[in-house]
């Protein structure tokens, strides 16, 4: 059987727990799948590779589909696990900043290719600020963290799940979330090209099923996920404490009000519409969009 | 003049101009010369008169600017077949031993190295370089380098031999020895030789004819037939006839008023 290649968003971290647990336990094989899991180099890069047919499935930040489809990508999300917006701005844990307006006069670092880049103006506007009220520095992910912990910046634009647990060691932080501005950005889920969804729908369906099972187990005991990731990526020298927290946050962000009670992976139209409205405002997508172009629930049971 | 029918080299009104942003240089003007097959011709003339230029033109290394030259029955377009050339500066390849430098010509002609190794070693021996086969050029003295480059030119027994002051860096005695050696090689193989030298004695001793060139621009002012019997003992140089020839050439030089142009 042709392997089903799944590319993750980044080097190993908590959000990968479901995939690695399933692989580690041999659940894919049990279900008759031959899954190959690759680490990624950013959600955007994985998205490109899925679109180019170099890999079959990607696990990425689903919000990126907005801009990607606008540029002609023919991919869809067929399962959303972490459905709540997780984009956040890290600030000192004991800082008194709690809302957008508190960022006035602050120095913020962001990765130029991050989904954050497109939202900065609208986010600040919701707090009555403009870009000139803050100082935005564009820095590579690899230098982002150092710049922030070195105190060269007051805030770091990232995601809550990936960043907060790591920050604990060097600069304990809390989050100002993107949805403070009423903006939404669907978080991690699985994508494939429309063609793959058409031709290999059965396999994808099985994939989603196995993932549901894995996440159910992880919800009950996050340490299963921690152990699975570390077993699957022995060379990465991961910190189990950080992984456990990342998994915990991931699980915390699984549901929006609209998906409460629905199966893991199922996506709500209203969530996508809320997200797309925000994207339309920023110019990421043009008016006239149809939310159902971006996702399908056909493969979720 | 040599009989045209058996001419090996025919030079007809050849001129050569070196273009230069600092002013073009007319190096040769209206050169006419026929060299019979098997003839030994020397060129003498003051420094800078175009001797090397003429040789390079005949070797097909410099395009001629006017006139025409025929070598071995073919109009000159590139180097003629079966050419052996000795350059004014010994051009030895630094990355090859002396033996390998000599064998270079064999490689160019796609001959088997092993077939010619013996001949190369023999030539080196005869030119006083026995024992230096495996040394590199920079380990040799100036005169030794020059001799090595002569061996290289002789290796493949060329029909036409163009030599630009081949013995310039040698002492008089070594020179005498090699003059004899060269005569022997020439007579044994009926080569056509064009030989540039600064030694008037050498020119007369070796040649059937001596061409006297002059400067500004380079042209032929006299061609002297050397009617001395062969084989010529070295002592022939003390003879009156010989003296007359050298005298005639010296006279030309004096007339040209070297350095006082």
């Amino acid at each position: 059987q042709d392997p089903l290649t799944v590319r993750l968003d980044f080097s190993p971290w908590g959000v990968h727990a479901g995939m690695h647990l399933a692989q580690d336990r041999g659940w894919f094989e049990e279900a008759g799948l031959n899954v190959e899991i690759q680490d990624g180099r950013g959600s955007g890069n994985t998205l490109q590779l899925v679109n180019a047919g170099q890999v079959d499935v990607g696990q990425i930040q689903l919000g990126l589909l907005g801009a990607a489809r606008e540029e002609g990508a023919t991919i869809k999300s067929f399962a959303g696990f972490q459905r709540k917006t997780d984009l956040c701005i890290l600030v000192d844990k004991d800082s008194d900043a709690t809302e957008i307006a508190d960022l006035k006069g602050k120095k913020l670092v962001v990765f130029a290719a991050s989904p954050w880049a497109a939202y900065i103006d609208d986010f600040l506007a919701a707090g009555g600020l403009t870009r000139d009220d803050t100082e935005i520095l564009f820095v590579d992910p690899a230098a982002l963290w150092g710049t922030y912990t070195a105190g060269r910046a007051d805030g770091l634009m990232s995601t809550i799940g990936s960043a907060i647990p790591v920050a604990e060691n060097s600069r304990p932080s809390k989050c100002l979330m993107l949805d403070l501005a009423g903006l939404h950005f669907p978080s991690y889920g699985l994508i494939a090209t429309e063609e793959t969804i058409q031709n290999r729908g059965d396999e994808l369906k099985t994939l989603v099923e196995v993932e549901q099972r894995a996440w159910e187990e992880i919800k009950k005991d996050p340490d299963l996920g921690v152990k699975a990731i570390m077993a699957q990526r022995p060379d990465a020298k991961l910190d189990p404490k950080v992984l456990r927290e990342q998994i915990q946050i991931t699980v915390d962000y699984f549901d929006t009000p609209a998906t409460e009670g629905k199966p893991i992976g199922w996506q709500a139209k209203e969530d996508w519409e809320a997200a797309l409205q925000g994207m339309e405002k920023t110019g990421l997508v043009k008016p006239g969009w149809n939310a159902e172009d971006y996702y399908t629930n056909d493969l979720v049971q | 003049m040599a009989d045209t029918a058996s001419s090996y080299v025919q030079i007809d009104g050849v001129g050569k101009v070196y273009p230069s942003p600092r002013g073009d240089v007319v190096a040769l003007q209206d050169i006419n010369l026929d060299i019979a097959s098997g003839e030994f011709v020397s060129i003498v003339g003051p420094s800078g008169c175009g001797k090397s230029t003429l040789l390079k033109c005949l070797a097909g290394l410099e395009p001629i600017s006017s006139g025409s030259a025929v070598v071995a029955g073919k109009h000159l377009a590139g180097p003629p077949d079966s050419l052996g050339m000795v350059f004014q500066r010994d051009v030895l390849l630094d990355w090859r031993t002396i033996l390998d430098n000599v064998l270079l010509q064999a490689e160019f002609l796609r001959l088997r190295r092993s077939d010619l190794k013996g001949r190369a070693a023999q030539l080196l021996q005869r030119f006083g370089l026995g024992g230096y086969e495996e040394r590199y050029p920079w380990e040799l003295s100036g005169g030794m380098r020059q001799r090595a480059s002569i061996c290289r030119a002789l290796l493949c027994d060329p029909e036409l031999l163009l030599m630009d002051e081949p013995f310039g860096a040698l002492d008089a005695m070594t020179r005498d020895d090699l003059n004899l050696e060269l005569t022997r090689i020439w007579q044994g193989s009926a080569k056509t030789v064009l030989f540039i030298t600064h030694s008037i004695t050498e020119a007369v001793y070796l040649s059937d004819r001596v061409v006297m060139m002059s400067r500004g621009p380079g042209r032929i002012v006299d061609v002297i037939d050397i009617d001395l019997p062969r084989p010529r003992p070295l002592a022939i140089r003390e003879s009156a006839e010989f003296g007359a020839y050298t005298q005639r050439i010296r006279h030309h030089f004096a007339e040209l008023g070297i350095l006082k142009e």
Partner: protein
Amino acid sequence: MNGLKRLLYGESRTRDVLLVLISVVILWEAAVAIFKPPVIFLPPPSAIWTEFASTPGIFIRHMGYTLGTTALAFFLSVVLGVILAVGIVQSKFLERTVYTLLVALNSVPKVALAPLFVIWLGVGMEPKIAVAIMLAIFPIVIDTVLGLRSVDPDMINLARAGRASRLQMLLKIQFPNALPSLFAGMKVAVSFALVGAIVGEFVAGGNGLGFLVLVAQGQFDTTRVFVSLVLLGLMGTVLFYAVDFAERLMLPWHVSQRGGGSPVEAGG
């Protein structure tokens, strides 16, 4: 006098280069028209041009920024590189210290080092210049060292017999002799200085073509990515031929330049 004109490669050279570029563009456009890859995969030249023409000001401004970094870094690389090369050739000690360190440093990918530079030096121009210099200096040092060492021993003897000081030996013998090599190094270095500037922009800062590439990548705007890449290619070509031109002006005496072509072809 057509010396200067020949130096400027004459019309025929410029024409050939243009012909090549135009053929590439046509082939590319045709390939895209025939195989119809998605735009996000490979945009056609026409789309790239349209994208550029829609906001030329933005591209040109960022190009200027990148050019500034590149030029400064290139200049510093040449100065520093030549100084280092001279030191290395003059002193066995420096050869065994500076040279070794330089070699080690050059083997560490700048993409991996750049983030550290940003952490150490901040997000200003400094880390970009530093990265660009680190990329560009190596070919200069290596080639200059070769050039300084490849002097005909007789020339060294000439200068020593003339009681030339070390400095004179360097300035009047070794350095002119190393110039052709130095220029080869500079040709490699000018391209690498540009690459270094971009790598620096990738890691920090909100200016330059590197920044534009990143932003466009983040938005899956492959066409816009390509506009910047094409502009980089053009900039690099122009910079390279500028060095080449300087070489022709300064080294008319070198065999590689004499007679305008390879010696093999001349008269053959």
